[in-house]
Each structure stands twice: as C-alpha cells, then as structure tokens.
C-alpha cells in the first residue's frame, strides 16, 4: 500500500516546487539604528505532489508561514526558484501573476485578521470572485451562499460580520473564500489548530471531501504531529528555516532520519503517554 502510494505520486511531476529558496528579514528596533536579521528561510528544497496532502510541521518560528507565503507568491523570496505546474513563476510579471493567483490559494493562520471586519460573510466569500470578475451582481451573492453551504455554514448568516462568528466558523468562512476560485493548490496555515476536537474533525472531513470533489492539492501547516499522522500523504519537517526531512508520511513516522524529527515524534508520544497516565490516575 505504502509503496503503491509513493509510486503513484512519484510518477507525476511535482505540482509545486521550491528550489534554493531563501528569505531574510531585516528588522530595525524603534528609535535605534541597530538592526538585526532573521533568516526565515535558508535554501529550502521542497516539492509537493499533485492531488496529495502534504503536511509541513516544525516548531514555532521555524519559517513555515514564511514558506507558505512565498509559495503563494504573497511575498518575494530573496533567492531561489518556485515552480508551479512545471514553470518557474517566482519572477512572473503582473499579468502572469494575475492568471496564476486563482490557482494557488491560501488560508491564513490568523483567520480573524484575514477577514475584513467591515464586510459581511457574503461579501468576504464573494471578494475573490469579484476581483477575478468571475461573477457579478446578484449571481455573486447566490454563489457566495452556495459556498457557505458547501463548507457547512448556513446561508442565513450571509449578512453577519466576521466578529459575530465563532473561531471555527470563521475558519470555514476563510476556507469557503479560498475555494471560491476553484484553486488547484490550497495552502492551509494552521487552519485546524486551536479548535476543539469535534470542530477539527469536521473541518478535516470537509477538506477531504473537497479534495475528492475538486482534486485539490493541499499543503497543511500544523504543529500537531498527531493529527498529521492520521491524514497526511507526505510530511516535511522544518527547523530554523530549513527543511530537515521530507518523505511519505509512514516512512517518516516509522523511520525518522533527522534527530529533530525524532525529537518532535518523541514529544508527541510523551504527551500522549502523559495524557494516558493522567487519565488512568484520575480514574
């Protein structure tokens, strides 16, 4: 099964690929001339098989979100290449970018911040359609309502503002917006962390359903190795701006090569066992 799976993906060329990607942030403290640099990405080599779910894990501040933003071309890397559907795209013109953007969509880590608080739910979901001139007028609204239903939100709430929704509902709103343009590649930055377990499960099921329906490719960013262990086809591990390990999930989980991966896995197991003993002790 595992070999089959690997082989299936290996036959096709990567949908998205990063080669030698580097990004450095220079930050200046206020009222001071001193500045310091943060190497958020260091020579990142990374590829994503089509119609797969790749999980990107790593400790906080390891550069996951930065990599995601670079892949979504929301930020320019300092060096390196980004390939999408067999083309180098990191130096695309505005025109090429406009054609490319609908194919790559991203759901942001901070769902409250990524939704304009002044917009209604329907306006939020309709924004990509409006921008890309896919629909207009009344069709825009009805399409937005369809999308709300698709992610399990009642269209009755179309006129509510984002702050009236709960965290999980906002997450769905953000996902509905991201799939509005029917992208080929969807990046989900911590879209399920911070939610309660049943909501997590609902959203994951939703994502898997969507994948079946639209043959999506996912990049799922997460802290949570336990969760990743259940649904990912591939796993990539980041540490301090580098991808330190990458491969099919079972392989990585069963036989971690990099010590950082081992540490991460060990900490998950430790947590689980602690949790069990705590439960046992409580009983």
């Amino acid at each position, binding site marked *: 099964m595992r070999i089959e799976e690997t082989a299936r993906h290996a036959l096709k060329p990567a949908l998205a690929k990063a080669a030698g990607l580097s990004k450095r942030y220079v930050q200046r403290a206020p009222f001071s001339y001193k500045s310091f640099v943060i190497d958020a990405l260091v020579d990142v080599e990374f590829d994503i098989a089509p119609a797969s779910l790749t999980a990107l894990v790593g400790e906080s501040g390891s550069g996951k979100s930065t990599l995601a933003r670079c892949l979504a071309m929301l930020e320019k890397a300092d060096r390196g290449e980004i390939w999408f559907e067999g083309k180098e795209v990191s130096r695309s013109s505005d025109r090429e970018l406009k054609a490319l953007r609908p194919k790559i969509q991203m759901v942001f880590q901070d769902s409250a*911040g990524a939704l304009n608080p002044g917009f209604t739910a329907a306006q939020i979901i309709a924004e990509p359609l409006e921008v890309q001139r896919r629909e207009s007028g009344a069709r825009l609204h009805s399409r937005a309502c369809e999308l709300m239903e698709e992610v399990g939100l009642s269209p009755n709430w179309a006129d509510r503002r984002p702050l009236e929704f709960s965290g999980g509902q906002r997450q769905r709103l953000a996902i509905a917006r991201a799939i509005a343009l029917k992208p080929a590649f969807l990046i989900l930055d911590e879209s399920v962390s911070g939610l309660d377990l049943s909501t997590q499960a609902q959203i994951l099921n939703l994502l898997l359903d969507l994948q079946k329906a639209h043959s999506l490719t996912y990049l799922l960013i997460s802290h949570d190795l336990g969760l990743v262990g259940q649904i990912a086809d591939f796993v990539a591990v980041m540490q301090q701006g580098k991808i330190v390990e990458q491969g099919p999930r079972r392989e990585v989980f069963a036989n971690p090569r990099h010590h950082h991966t081992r540490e991460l896995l060990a900490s998950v197991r430790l947590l689980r066992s602690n949790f069990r003993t705590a439960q046992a002790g409580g009983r």
Partner: protein
Amino acid sequence: MRKKQKIVAALMLLVALHLAILLAGFIAPYNPATQNRDFPFVPPTRFHFADARGHFHLRPFIYQWTVRPEGFNEYEEARGREYPVQFFVRGPEYTIAGLVRSDVHLFGVEGPARIFLAGSDGFGRDQFSRIMYGGQISLAAGLLATGISLFLGLLVGCISGFYGSWIDESAMRLVELFLVLPWLYLLLAVRSFLPLHISPTQTFFLLVAVIGTIGWARPARLVRGIVLSAKGRKYVTASRGFGATDSYILRRHVLPHTYGVLLTQAALLVPQYIVAEVTLSFLGLGVSEPVSSWGNLLANLQQYNVLASYWWMFAPALALVIISLGYLKVANAIHERLQSDSI
C-alpha cells in the same frame, strides 16, 4: 443616551443654521444691498406687546425709528403709529440657490417702517439681512475649502501611505513644513502673491483655493497613518492573493477606514476655515464690498467710532460663535464615538 441626544441636538442646530443661511432670501426681510441713507446706524428694532394706550396685543408690533432732533445718528421710537409684525409678507424679489424665485419673506412690517433685527450699518442697510447673505459667502468658503483640504489630504495621505518609499518620505517632510508654519502668516504670504485687484467672484474662489490648500497637511498625515496601518492588515494580503489591484484594495479595504478621521477633520476644519475667510476679509484681503461676508461686516468695527458707539455691529460675531460652537460639539461627538468604537 444623554450623549446621543446631545449629538442629535448639535446636529439639528447645525442643519437648521445652514438651512436658514441657504434660505437667506426668504428669512432676510430686505435686500442686503438696499441703502437707507436716512437711517445710518439704527439700533436693533424693539418689539412691543403693549401700546401707548395700555392695550395688550397678541401680535407683537414695532415703532418706526426717527432721528432724535438734537442728536447725531441717535434715534428714538416714533410712538405715533404701531406696525404689527407680519409673517409671509411680500417684499423685494430674491432667488434661492440660483433656482427658486420668490418675493415672499418670512417676516416683515408694512412700509414706511423698517424692521432692523440687528440694527443697520453706516449706509442704513439692514444688518440682519447682510448677516444672512454674508453667511452664504462665509459658510460656502468654509465648506468648499474644507472639501479641498480633505481631498488633497486624502490624495497625498493615500499615495504616501500606500506606496511608501521616497514618495512618502518627501511628502511627510512637506507636511512637517506646512504644520510648522503659523497658518495665518502662510495664508497672508500666499494671498500676497496673488493678484489683488480682481472681481469678487474670482477673489472668492482664490480665497477658497488658498485656504483649502494651506490646510492639507494635517488630514494628509492622519490619513497616511490610517492607510499605513490598514495596508498592513492580513486581509489586504489575502486580497492580493486573489489578484486584487492596488486600486481595488484602496477602494475596498483602505478608504473605508479613513472616513471617520475625515469626518472629524471636516467638523474641525469647517469652523476654522470660516474663521480664516472672516479673518482675511476683515483684513481687507478677502471678499470686499458690496458683497457681504461676516468678515467685512466685522471690518466695520475697525473704525473707532463704530466700535465705541454701535454695539450691534458685533452681531456677525455672534453668528460666527454659534456656528463654531455647533461644529465643535459635533466634532467632539464624532471623536468620542470613534474612540469608543476602536476600543
């Protein structure tokens, strides 16, 4: 709740004042330019309810002023005949906003008596009518100049905040320059570079342009700050991800945040600019006779004898203060509202 009532009251006062000044022709009993050489510096008319025979009248009436025989520009009431105050009377023809022609006035008295609510000036012109008509000039100047300032401020602030880099840097230096200069000095300086002897209409628009251009700096700086913080929001990045253009982002995500500041600034700037127009006209650099504005009405007081003897020549100042007070109240209310919103 009480706060809300206050805002509503202030707003209603402002609307009523503006409406009254817009309808100057209807509210003012006389043509502001009509002179009565026999009645220079007549004091405000007094209203009476009880006549000389001790009869009480429900409808107030007035007496005509006559020159006191021994005095100079001193008047007394001619008690011989009562002139009841009438409403919706026919009088000199006027147009409102250049559209509606009419000759019906809100109030008036039968001739030959004249009703001088705020006295008359040195040419015997009715000062109340002059204040109403002058208000049109002063308010229009304030509103138009505010429009110019806000437009320029919005333009510069948006470009500066949105595109940043050297544009921002140089625009903000220019803002600093304009903010550091005492505005009246700058106003006079700019005015002095412009031609002096031009038609009143030209003067008016030049004045508006000058006042409006000088005040662009503060709104520009405020708008820039808001644009800067708005464009750093995650939802703007998200919008870029859908392929949104700069103009779309500005229009949909950035501009709506500036409305609050623009509104507060407007409420602060309008009275300031009205005062600026009044000041310039007072100094003889603005709108000049025969067109009246609150500034050149007040300029009468520059003559020592007028200042010393005819207190009613201060009436335009009262109008100015009431308008300023109304705007100030509204500005405060909007400001408080915005602050409570942001918390």
